[in-house]
């Protein structure tokens, strides 16, 4: 009886950790890419990617993106009840989709700037998820 709440707490802790990790990652991505293509285009691409994925990962809908930046308050609330793996997959899909869009627009120019900075953090998220 006592083990379940503990596991839940542990899971929630990991969820928060993953969420925080990806939140920082997205903010970093925003900073790097907006300097290259501008806030207006980047917000457009973010919203395009979110629209594409929100069917599969509804929690992404609460990530609000405008020219002013990323707003994640809703996202934090929404993802409280989600399993870490679900959050990880949702964000990973978002990153992949954005990366595909960047590549469609500018071959490797954006991803070349982006990958060295974000790749280690995605790996870190995967490590946290795989921890037993």
């Amino acid at each position: 009886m006592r083990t379940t709440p503990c596991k839940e707490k542990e899971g929630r802790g990991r969820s928060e950790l993953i969420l925080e990790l990806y939140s920082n990652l997205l903010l970093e991505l925003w900073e790097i890419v907006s300097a290259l293509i501008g806030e207006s285009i980047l917000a457009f691409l973010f919203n395009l990617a979110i629209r594409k994925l929100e069917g599969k990962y509804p929690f992404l809908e609460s990530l609000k993106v405008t020219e002013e930046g990323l707003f994640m308050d809703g996202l934090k609330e929404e993802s409280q009840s989600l399993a870490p793996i679900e959050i990880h997959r949702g964000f990973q899909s978002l990153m992949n989709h954005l990366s595909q869009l960047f590549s469609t627009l500018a071959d490797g120019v954006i991803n070349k700037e982006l990958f060295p900075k974000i790749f280690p953090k995605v790996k870190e998220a995967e490590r946290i998820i795989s921890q037993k």
Partner: protein
Amino acid sequence: MRLIFKNLNVLRSTLNAISTSMEIKGIVESAGNNLPNLFDFSSFGVFWKEDLLLFLYQEESCPPSFTQEVLKNMVNVFSTLGEISLRVDQIKLQVEKKRLRPKQMVMDPRAGLKSHITLPLTVEGEILGCISLNSDQPNAFDAQDLQFFSVIGYQMAATLKHFQRFSSIQNIAIYDTLTGLYNRRYFEERLGIETQKAFYGGTPLSLVMVDIDHFKRVNDTFGHAGGDQVLCQTSSLLKGSIRKKDTVARYGGEEFILILPEANLDATFVIAERIRRLVENTPFEIGGTKIQLTISMGISNFPTHQARSKEELVKMADEALYEAKRGGRNKVCIFGEKLFREVKP
């Protein structure tokens, strides 16, 4: 550092040229003329969603196969960004070739698209089109190119949006929203210009006032939606019956007015009579029901009727229309002529 300053200056003048352009083609040309000072490219493209128009500004020696590749790539990118499926054959292509490279560096006739930067033209989350820099060289563009190009794209999008807003305001100001004909406000303005030309240039000018006979019955029988359909169909008939230099406007309700510059009285009568017969012989369709309608018309002419102002010319056409109504409708009446002219079949 000096190079960056030079580039910033070029960028500044490019942005200035774009923002002071008066039409889409002007924007493309301004950008195209300035871009070679900033980037090494083979082709620069601007796709404008509203008209499905792609302007390509490219190196003189660009082979057609390269143009096709650029076209295909821009269509693919826009389809992804705009979440629509566009086909290459839907696009209207306008190509302008310029020497962008020294003579000794002409493009290989088999050159293919090796690298590109394509950015959406977005304003307030709406996508208006996209712009693209293309090259036959691999890895032709770097992060700084992308930064500069995105600033140019931002300015272009803002200017294009401004055009779009301006043209929709202009449309509201001069067109009748139901029929698509010019509205009365535009008619007054146009008539002012045409009467000036006629009065001072001594050229003839005719006005034809048109009214749909028994229009109230149409509204009573088929409702206002049916009435609207009749107005639209009548408008199409009128629009299709006039010359390029003529103006047809909705004057109000079921009344229309035609300005026929350089048309003497006889020519005007022939045109009016042809329109009257056309309407008489055209079945009007309202929700699956076909009905027959007629129109009455009144003509005034300068210099025949010696009008001294545009207002007087309108009044004369209106009085002639009244005569046509009084004479039994489905008639063309000329101001001042009590007897209707004989119409030869």
